[in-house]
C-alpha cells in the first residue's frame, strides 16, 4: 500500500501544480469573462433600449451618465450580491440534485475550455481531435440542466429544463454538421490543423459559398445552444418565471451564470477559429494593406485578433438579444428541423462536390 501513497504524492508534486495552474487559469478566464460580459451586456442593452440604470450607477466619484464608465458600479454591486446572497434550498426539492446540477453544468463549460485556444500558443492542451472534443464536452451541460429542472420540484423548472434540453440537443445537429463541412475541407479535426489550412488558403467563410452559409448556420445554432434570446424559451419570463433556474439562488445560481457566459465565449471563439481564421490577422488575408502593417501578425497579436473576432461575435449575440422578440416553441423547432437541418445537409453534399471539382 505504500506504493499507492508514494504514487499519490508523486502525482501531486509533479503534476498537481501544473493541473491546478491550468484550472485556475480557466476559472479566471470564466470569471473575468462573466464580469466583463455582464457589464458589456448592460451597456449594450442601455444603448439599444434607452435603459437608464446601467448608464447612471457610479462609484468612487465617477458619476456615470453617458460616459464609458457609467454603470460600472452595477457590475461590482452584482458580483457582491451574488457572493453574499442566501443559499436557498426549497423544502420539497431534491436537495442532492439541487446541489449537484450547477456543478455538472459548470464542469461541462469548464472542461470544454481545455480544448479552446486563445492564440496559437496560449491554450491548455493541444489534441488531434480538438474540435470534436469541444463539441462533445459542451453537450455535457444538458444533463445538468435536466437535473436542475427535475430537482427543483417545480412545474416551471421542469418545463424549462425539458424545453432547454430538447432545444440544445436539436441545435447540436446543424451546428455539428456545419463544423463537419470545415473538417471535410481541411481534412483534420485538430484546431491548429484547421487554422494552418486557413493560413495556406483563405478564411473558411470566404472559401466557398457553402462555407459562407455554414458559418451562419453554426452561429444561429450556437446562439440557440446558449439559450439566449431570441431562443430563450426555456427561461421565458412571461410564461416560465425563470425556467429551470427559478429555484436557484446565491452561488449556485452564479455558477449557471458563469457557465452561460462561458458558453457564449466558447461558441464565439470556436466560430472565430473555425470560420474566421482564428488567430490569423486580416492583413494576411487581404492584400490591400500596406507592408508595414504586417507587423501586427505576430504571436501576441494572434491573441488580440482571435479575441477581437470573438468579442465582435459576442456583441452580435447581445445585439440579437436586445432587438429580437422571442420565438415560440413550435417556431423554434421549425427553424431547427425544417430550415437549418436541410440547409446544412444540402451544404454538406454540395461542399463535397465543390471540393472534388475545384
Amino acid at each position, binding site marked *: 500500500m505504500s506504493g499507492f501513497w508514494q504514487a499519490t504524492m508523486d502525482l501531486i508534486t509533479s503534476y498537481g501544480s501544473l493541473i491546478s495552474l491550468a484550472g485556475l487559469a480557466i476559472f479566471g478566464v470564466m470569471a473575468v469573462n462573466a464580469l466583463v460580459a455582464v457589464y458589456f451586456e448592460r451597456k449594450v442593452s442601455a444603448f439599444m433600449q434607452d435603459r437608464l440604470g446601467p448608464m447612471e450607477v457610479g462609484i468612487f466619484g465617477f458619476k456615470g451618465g453617458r460616459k464609458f464608465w457609467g454603470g460600472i458600479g452595477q457590475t461590482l454591486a452584482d458580483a457582491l450580491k451574488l457572493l453574499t446572497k442566501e443559499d436557498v434550498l426549497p423544502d420539497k426539492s431534491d436537495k442532492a440534485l439541487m446541489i449537484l446540477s450547477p456543478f455538472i453544468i459548470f464542469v461541462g463549460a469548464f472542461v470544454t475550455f481545455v480544448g479552446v485556444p486563445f492564440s496559437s500558443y496560449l491554450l491548455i492542451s493541444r489534441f488531434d*481531435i480538438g474540435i470534436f472534443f469541444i463539441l462533445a464536452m459542451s453537450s455535457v451541460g444538458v*444533463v445538468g440542466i435536466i*437535473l436542475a429542472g427535475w430537482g427543483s420540484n417545480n412545474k416551471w423548472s421542469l418545463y424549462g429544463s425539458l424545453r432547454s434540453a430538447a432545444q440544445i440537443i436539436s441545435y*447540436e445537429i446543424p451546428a455539428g454538421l456545419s463544423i463537419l463541412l470545415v473538417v471535410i475541407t481541411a481534412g483534420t479535426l485538430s484546431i491548429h490543423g484547421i487554422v494552418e489550412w486557413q493560413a495556406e488558403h483563405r478564411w473558411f467563410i470566404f472559401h466557398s459559398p457553402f462555407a459562407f452559409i455554414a458559418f451562419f448556420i453554426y452561429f444561429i445554432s450556437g446562439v440557440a445552444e446558449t439559450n439566449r434570446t431570441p431562443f430563450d424559451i426555456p427561461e421565458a419570463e412571461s410564461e416560465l418565471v425563470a425556467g429551470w433556474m427559478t429555484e436557484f439562488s446565491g452561488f449556485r445560481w452564479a455558477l449557471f451564470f458563469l457557465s452561460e457566459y462561458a458558453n457564449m465565449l466558447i461558441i464565439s471563439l470556436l466560430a472565430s477559429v473555425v470560420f474566421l481564421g482564428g488567430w490569423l490577422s486580416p492583413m494576411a488575408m487581404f492584400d490591400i494593406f500596406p507592408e508595414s502593417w504586417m507587423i501586427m501578425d505576430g504571436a501576441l497579436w494572434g491573441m488580440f485578433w482571435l479575441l477581437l473576432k470573438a468579442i465582435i461575435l459576442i456583441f452580435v449575440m447581445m445585439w440579437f438579444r436586445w432587438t429580437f422578440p422571442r420565438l415560440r416553441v413550435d417556431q423554434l423547432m421549425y427553424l431547427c428541423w425544417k430550415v437549418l437541418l436541410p440547409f446544412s445537409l444540402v451544404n454538406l453534399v454540395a461542399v463535397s462536390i465543390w471540393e472534388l471539382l475545384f
Partner: protein
Amino acid sequence: MSMSELVFIFIAALTISSAFWVVFSNNLIYSAVALLFTLFGVAGLYVFLFADFIAATQVMVYVGGILVLIIFGVMLTNQISESTVTQTNRPRLLAGVIAFIIFLMVAYISLTTQWHEGTVQTAEKTTTVIGDMILNEYLLPFEAVSLVLLAALLGSALLSRKQHG
C-alpha cells in the same frame, strides 16, 4: 506503482462503484445520475487505451444523447411522481439464473481472451486509422449499421405520428 496506474485505479473505481449505484439505487433519477459518472469513467478508460476519438464519441453519444433520452424517458413515465420504483424483477429465480449464465459467459471470455496491452500508443492519429478501417475493411458492417439506424429513425417517426398505418 506508477502514476498512470494510480489514475487508472481511480477511474476504474469510479466506473465500477457508480455502476453498482446505477443498479442498486431505488430512485430512477439517481440511477441516471450515477450512469453519468459510469459513462465518464468508461470514456476515461478509453483515454487510457489511447483511443481519444472513441472517448470523445462516448461522451458525445452516451452522455449528450442517450443519457438525456433515458432521463427524458424516466420523467415522462406515468407513475414517477414518488420517484421510488423498485428495481428488483418479478420472477427472481429465472432472472437470477439468466444473470448468472451471462456472468459466467463474460467471465469465461475475459479470462480466455488475449488482451491487447493498452499502455503503448499504436497509432499516431487515431482518426486516420479509424476512417481507413471503416471505409475499407469494415465497410459492410458500417453500411449495415447505417441501414439499421435509418430504419429505426423512420420507424420511430412512423410510430410517433398520430394516425399511423
